[in-house]
């Protein structure tokens, strides 16, 4: 193959032009140039070029970060906290009784008045040195219990999927604001020379309720949007060359494009042309890097078995393994969505006895493997893993159609999430719900507090990571959010 390096003189010229553009760019942020930092990646782009340059590359953190990268595991639909982490013997004691009014949230989706209390059908035990309560549905996770920081007192304002997912990931329940990953790449830039800074993996056979808005960049430049990886077809959309074109053919076309574009740059002097030349080179590199990182066949059989991964399939297990690979390769924010946790109990496809064990079986092993794998590679300390749904579920059996299946309705007042690595307190259980698991009894943590705390772990003051749009300095936590130091190691 031909030499891919570029003419050093020309390169120097580009760097100067881009530097100059960056330097000038700081005055008017909204022009996109300023925010290029997150995907621009070639070391020369990130180097400070003069006084004030750090304003463009917002890569400066506000204080020392505990975590460098995030892997966010979102169980779309929302797992039932009563059946996995938040053990409430009272429910079993009073199973089948009409639930008292006090256990209802202010608003709910389907559950009717006089619904009956639903004791968990699953056994709980305390595990690890920490004595963490866990359900029998999570046998593998029990093995890493002492790595987890379990939070039982999360609460949100939304009780429908799409709005609640948006609230959790963008800070606002209506689509159109930047997601957490976008904020972070906007604030911190990328660590990887060949990969996007924010990548998204979806499993469960369906797209997430909130759609692309859950990883959208909102009013931030679209550069900061999450890039969805796909299990079928191209791993990243259109990364593969068309049939009949080999690498040499692609190299040849990019050489011709860039030669002509260099002429264009000389004629018009537009710095954007120089950036475009760089983007074609970056794209060429990504064409090798992306399939490479996305190919889990490169893992050992032992690792594949550890995760329960099956190359070629669409599965949450594969995505967990991919998350580790992407994170290891420097992707700042890896967002997983797994569809199918909405256990209303209208039939075996969404009930507590068939569907929930199935979802747990698909996810328990790979999540435990992910945490153990990060740990043995020395990556867990700098990688924050977060597991959550978008809200909690009811004390009561929903019994929407009275067909006898067990299930719980949406419940915004409390839910359980866990975090691991990245500076969180391992083996801790934070916050408590009341004896019903219906309301927060101790240390309420709103989703905005969670966002503020996650940003804090990444070295960012959530009040200071702002972007002016429509005359207002927006931030992920809107006008809310309190950092919760009790979550931190």
């Amino acid at each position: 193959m031909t030499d891919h390096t570029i003419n050093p003189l020309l390169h120097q010229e580009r760097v100067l032009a881009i530097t100059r553009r960056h330097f000038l760019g700081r005055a008017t942020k909204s022009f996109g140039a300023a925010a290029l930092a997150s995907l621009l990646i070639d070391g020369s782009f990130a180097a400070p070029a003069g006084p004030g340059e750090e304003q463009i590359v917002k890569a400066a953190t506000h204080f020392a970060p505990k975590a460098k990268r995030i892997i966010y595991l979102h169980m779309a639909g929302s797992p039932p906290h009563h059946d996995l982490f938040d053990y409430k013997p009272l429910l079993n004691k009073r199973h089948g009784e009409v639930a008292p009014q006090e256990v209802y949230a202010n608003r709910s989706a389907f559950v009717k008045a006089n619904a009956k209390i639903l004791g968990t059908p699953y056994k709980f035990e305390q595990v690890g040195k920490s004595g963490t309560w866990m359900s029998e549905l999570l046998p593998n996770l029990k093995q890493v219990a002492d790595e987890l920081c379990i939070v039982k007192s999360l609460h949100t304002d939304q009780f429908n999927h799409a709005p609640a997912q948006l609230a959790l990931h963008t800070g606002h329940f209506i689509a159109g604001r930047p997601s957490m990953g976008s904020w972070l790449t906007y604030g911190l830039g990328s660590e990887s020379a060949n990969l996007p800074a924010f990548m998204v993996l979806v499993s469960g056979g369906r797209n997430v309720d909130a759609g692309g808005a859950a990883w959208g960049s909102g009013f931030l430049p679209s550069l900061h949007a999450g890039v969805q990886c796909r299990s079928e077809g191209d791993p990243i959309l259109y990364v593969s060359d068309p049939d009949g074109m080999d690498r040499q053919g692609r190299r040849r076309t990019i050489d011709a494009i860039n030669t002509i574009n260099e002429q264009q740059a000389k004629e018009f002097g537009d710095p954007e042309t120089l950036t475009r030349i760089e983007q074609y080179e970056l794209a060429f590199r990504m064409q090798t890097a992306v399939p490479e990182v996305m190919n889990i066949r490169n893992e050992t059989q032992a690792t594949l078995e550890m995760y329960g991964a099956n190359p070629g399939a669409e599965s949450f297990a594969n995505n967990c393994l991919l998350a580790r690979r992407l994170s290891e390769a420097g992707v700042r924010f890896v967002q997983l969505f797994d569809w199918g946790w909405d256990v209303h109990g209208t039939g075996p496809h969404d009930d507590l006895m068939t569907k929930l064990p199935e979802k747990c079986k698909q996810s328990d092993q790979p999540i435990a493997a992910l945490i153990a794998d990060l740990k043995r590679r020395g990556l867990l300390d700098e990688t924050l893993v977060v597991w959550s749904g978008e809200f909690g579920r009811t004390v009561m059996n929903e019994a929407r159609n009275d067909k006898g299946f067990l299930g719980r309705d949406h419940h915004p007042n409390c839910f359980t999430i866990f975090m691991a690595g990245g500076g969180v307190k391992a083996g801790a259980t934070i916050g408590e719900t009341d004896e019903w698991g219906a309301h927060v009894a101790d240390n309420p943590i709103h989703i905005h507090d969670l966002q503020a705390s996650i940003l804090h772990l990444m070295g960012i003051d959530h009040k200071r990571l702002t972007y002016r749009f429509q005359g207002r300095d927006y931030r992920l936590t809107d006008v809310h959010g309190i950092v919760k130091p009790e979550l931190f190691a």
Partner: protein
Amino acid sequence: MRTKNRTIVSLAGCVLVAGALIIPSLVSGPTDPSRTHESDNSEVVLIKDNTPQAGKTADQSGQKPVDFAREVLPILSNHCLNCHGPDQESAQAKKAGFRLDVREEAVGFEFIKPGHADDSAVIDVLTTTKASRKMPPMDSGKPQLSKAQIETLRRWINEGAEYTQHWAYTKPVKPELPKLPAEADPKWASNDIDLFVLAKLYENGLKPNAPADPHRLIRRVYIDLIGLPPTPEQAKAFVSDPSPDAYSRVVDELLASPQFGEHWAKQWLDKARFADTQGYAEDRPRSIWRYRDWVIDAYNRDLPFDQFTVEQLAGDLLPDPSTDQLIATGFHRNTMTNTEGGTDDEEFRVAAIIDRVNTTGEVWLGITMACVQCHTHKYDPIFHDEYYQLFAFFNQTQDNDNYNDQPFIKAPYPEQQGEIQKREAQLAQAKQALADAGEQPFAAPKDSPDKPTAAQQVLIDAQKALDSFMNQVPTTLVMKDFPADKQRETYLFKGGSFLAPDKDGGIIQPGTPKAFHPFPKDAPRNRLGLAQWLVHADNPLTARVQVNRIWEQIWGVGLVQTTEDFGFQGSYPSNKALLDYLAVTYQQDLAWSTKSLIRMIVMSTAYQQSAVQTAEKLEIDPFNRLLARGPRMRLSAEQIRDQALAIAGILNTDRIGGPSVSPYLPEGQLPQSFSSVRQQESKGADLYRRGVYTYWQRTAHYASFAAFDAPSRDVCTSKRSRTNTPLQVFVTLNDRVYVEAAQMLGRRLIQEAGNDVDARLKLGVWLALQREASKIELDALRQVYTQSLSDYRENPEAAAAMAVGPAPALPEGMDAAEAAAMTLVGNVLLNLDELINKP
């Protein structure tokens, strides 16, 4: 360079402050990184205007007084009004105790002593070293003021601390045409725009560029007016036409082209958040594309903007509205509908009304309303109850977040109207015949043995014929108010929550904010009256905002950079006189004709300049706010695709309008969570329609458009960003749409340019860039071609794969290796920077 300038400028300022001991070294140095937005209010290119000390000499009398609206208000707004502003209900405001945006309060409490800056408490708290008294408070999150800003305030107080109205809230007055300096060439100006531009350039020590090369100019004006490049023939005809009106004739032809509306509709559809699905979790399809066609048509017939406004906001309230006027009301029916099971319909009905209020504020007034849903605006004088007065206008429509999106109407295309009338006439005739025969319509129950008579059968058939035709007639969503006796009561929502209506505060009646011109006396208190208020001659904002949007489409950046915000937090215009001139001209002289406004802009000499950026101009004016060069910017998502198809000769321009279509979709798209509906790829000619017809699915936005910054249209988007990313590279290199375009372009070159390779390549450059190829270009393309040809000759299988699919089988007799190699040439051409940009 700029840092140095700033230092010098600031020092000059310091020297002049009598008695102020400012140590020069404190003044320079890099700005605080937390204040990256600081300069958004000050125009980067207007250093001279905006830095109060600029141009100052030792003689203080030569100095312009501080302009409150331009220099002081942005400082107050950015640093102080969050607590000392209109919103006096917040905890911080209660602590703050007084408003700085109201002179009586600031002066009354002696925080400002006009004429005596050093005795004014405001200056004291800004400059004190005591953390407890320091303003803004350290924990407020608000940045501290720079020395230069404090100096501006100091001078303003010493000059008497006069308050004036925010510039954009004062009705524009047509300014005098500027006097040009002696060294400027008045012949440079083609129209009045140029006089304003030229005066500003000389004021800033810049000179205009030379005229653009005619090949570039013709491409630019085609792209701007119809969104497509000229054909080589059109370009050649223009560059070889020596007549002085050659350019203006082209402009007029393009303005009259039906493709003008297809191009210009797109930016409006972003504001209207037009999409083909309802949004949220289920994201079901909805039928509202007749609204999109209405917008295209409105641009094509140059519906004056005041009428354009009235029909979209209140077409249903006009006397005896036409079907078209009802279709127009789809503007505000593009809000999302949440059909997820278990949702509270009222919550999302209210969310839709809130969206309508905010969108109306943003689109027509350039005012950000969203904050006022929950509390009085922190900066602009819009009060919490006034938000709900606007809300009340929109709160009477019958839509209620229902899954079927009611109310909707049958909205036949013009060509369907005739057939409907024909079938209706036949039905009427059959009824008449039946009546004449003294018979009743056939009404026997289903299982009755009775059979209809001949006349009854004719009526049945006529009814069926009409019904079956009506089933093909598209429906579209419309606005419809409840009758007077069934209207909803509007209350203020405490904290913006629909669950907390302030019943004690009483029912809120429709009304407009007091800070603006009064509601017209003779106007009805409904959406129609609101629309009339928006386009009223006294409205200070609507014309400015609209002119600015048109300007932004052509120049890439508005005269007011913050297109969506003309309020206190918005940016000051780069050329206020020009903005006001255009606003008044648009409203009065041009009678709101958008085509005339666009014509005026593209006929200016400023527009026709070369886009070359010299190092000097890039340094002084990186974003071309002063217009010392022609506009050069990346094309939109739709333009990039339309252009590729056009150059390849496969763009389908047979008809204007019609149902939305889906171009090639990527494999492996997951269905939306609860929905069973999966988008279907279109077939045949529908694959090649213009981007404005692309099916817009909110939760699964067409990926190749999203990559080029097309918004998902969940909510109003005033301005698309223009990024430059590797994901875009993947689209134009490898998306099947572009692979097919490259294949078809390659075939076209083989078929149309004879056997000579160079002739084929030259034609390629003409098709792509409408000019002769340079030697560098020819060499680069030839190298791709010859090397690939030899590879493909050795590998016929690869050649066949590259040459065919998605493009159909090769034409009879075409060599696969040649076609494959020429496909690579096409691929190169479709990825050139000059092609992806407006030159």
